[in-house]
């Protein structure tokens, strides 16, 4: 185990592995193109729970149970849980934690919370702290609508750049126990504010942070985009992908091309499912990574990816008061260990 700093905020990690992962999603996500990759698809948005906040907690706790089952572990094997969500005071993560009662680190980087969790867990595991961590993130479309937008039954029109908060949760087991997938390196993002003001266009607010983190990661590691099978952002959506590609090419001379993918763009059939710019929310990157990307790394179809989840750091109050919207992105590189390595 070791952690080696490289550049301003990039770290090479040795001896930390990605174990099992689990993703549980809502019905709309289950109708999307990635349906086959999720561990469980809810038949409805959780109407059996007394509130959508409780439904979100259940979404998270189901994914945790599945991840532990797959790993043949019980809660007592988990040394620390690192998790985040979108709701005020992290009630999803913290209220779920009162049922498992394991040591808990709550994190918030909005929709980048999952990679913040992975990065933080990798750093502490890599320095001989805990040896097994559960990294979690969850979001629920309807609880997010309640907090950030309007009452659910109020009619209004979404703008074309608006994103659709995903009902999804993703859980990953990180461990110092050797497995096929290795945490390779990570970069802790910095908050960038390029003056975007529209909460219905988070892509413009997050794209600069995504590109900044990506470019700093590649520079610090002495790599190019060719070292990765895919560079995956969290929820830039269709518009944000175009912005990020343009920004990287024009300002940083990094041509990302087809390598650049986005969890929010992949989660839905954007035309058919009427989600405008694509999916968002902490559960978006967590679910798509834990379902689709982790499985593709395990099967060997992908060998190395850079996950760069993106977060727009605003609150309903901040934009009503006229504040611009800062963005953040944390990056984590995961590599498949080939035979004999």
């Amino acid at each position: 185990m070791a952690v080696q700093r490289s550049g301003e905020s990039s770290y090479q990690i040795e001896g930390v592995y990605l174990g099992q992962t689990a993703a549980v999603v809502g019905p709309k996500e289950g109708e999307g193109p990635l349906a086959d990759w999720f561990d469980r698809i809810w038949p409805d948005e959780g109407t059996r729970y007394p509130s959508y906040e409780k439904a979100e907690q259940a979404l998270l706790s189901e994914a945790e149970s599945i991840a532990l089952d797959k790993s043949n572990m019980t809660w007592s094997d988990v040394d620390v849980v690192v998790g985040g969500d979108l709701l005020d005071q992290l009630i999803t993560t913290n209220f779920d934690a009162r049922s498992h009662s394991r040591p808990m680190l709550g994190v918030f980087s909005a929709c980048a919370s999952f990679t913040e969790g992975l990065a933080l867990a990798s750093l502490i595991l890599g320095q001989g702290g805990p040896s097994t961590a559960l990294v979690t993130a969850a979001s629920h479309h309807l609880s997010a609508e309640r907090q950030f937008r309007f009452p659910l039954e109020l009619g209004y029109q979404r703008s074309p750049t608006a994103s659709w908060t995903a009902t999804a949760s993703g859980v990953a087991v990180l461990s110092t126990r050797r497995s096929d997938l290795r945490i390779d390196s990570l970069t802790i993002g910095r908050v960038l504010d390029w003056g975007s003001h529209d909460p219905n266009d988070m892509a413009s607010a997050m794209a600069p942070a995504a590109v900044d983190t990506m470019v700093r990661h590649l520079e610090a590691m002495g790599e190019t985009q060719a070292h990765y099978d895919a560079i995956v952002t969290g929820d830039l959506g269709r518009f944000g992908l175009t912005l990020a590609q343009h920004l990287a090419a024009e300002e940083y001379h990094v041509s990302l091309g087809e390598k650049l993918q986005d969890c929010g763009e992949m989660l839905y059939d954007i035309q058919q499912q009427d989600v405008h710019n694509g999916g968002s929310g902490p559960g978006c990157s967590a679910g798509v990574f834990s379902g689709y990307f982790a499985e593709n790394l395990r099967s060997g179809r992908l060998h190395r990816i850079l996950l760069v989840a993106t977060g727009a750091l605003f609150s309903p109050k901040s934009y009503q008061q006229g504040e611009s919207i800062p963005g953040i992105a944390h990056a984590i590189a995961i590599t498949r260990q080939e035979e004999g390595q």
Partner: protein
Amino acid sequence: MGIDVRNKVNPDRIRRFQDYANRIRPQKTVGINLAWAFLVGGAISLFGQGVMWAFEHEGFSSQAAATPTSIVLVGMGALLTGLGWYDRIVKRGGMGGSLPITGFANAIVAPAMEYRSEGLVLGIGAKLFTVAGPVLVYGMAMAFLVGVARYLLGTS
């Protein structure tokens, strides 16, 4: 408080990025939206007119028919909101769905349904007017100003 200082980024780079974003940002389809607003708002108004004629047919004077007509339309808006359909009407019709009195009913009933999980007092009671509140506040303020103007001008 310039953003260039906050981020230690070349302001030209930010300006170039925002210019590009503004250029390629997907825009609302204003023409289609206007047409839908006209159709949906027109359909609701037509329905309201039909209700009004029905009351007149029952012997109400045209002035007296206005009140029960409003009650029927508000009831319809509330019912459709409760059934979860009104938001779909507005999604298509935009202001054509929000502006008629049925939309006002939607703006009251939606928070009532929404905040019941937070209780009768701090939930429904405190938040019933989160959406319709501005309409009431500025509507009453304007009514007051018009009333004062009318009084000062001495017309009755």
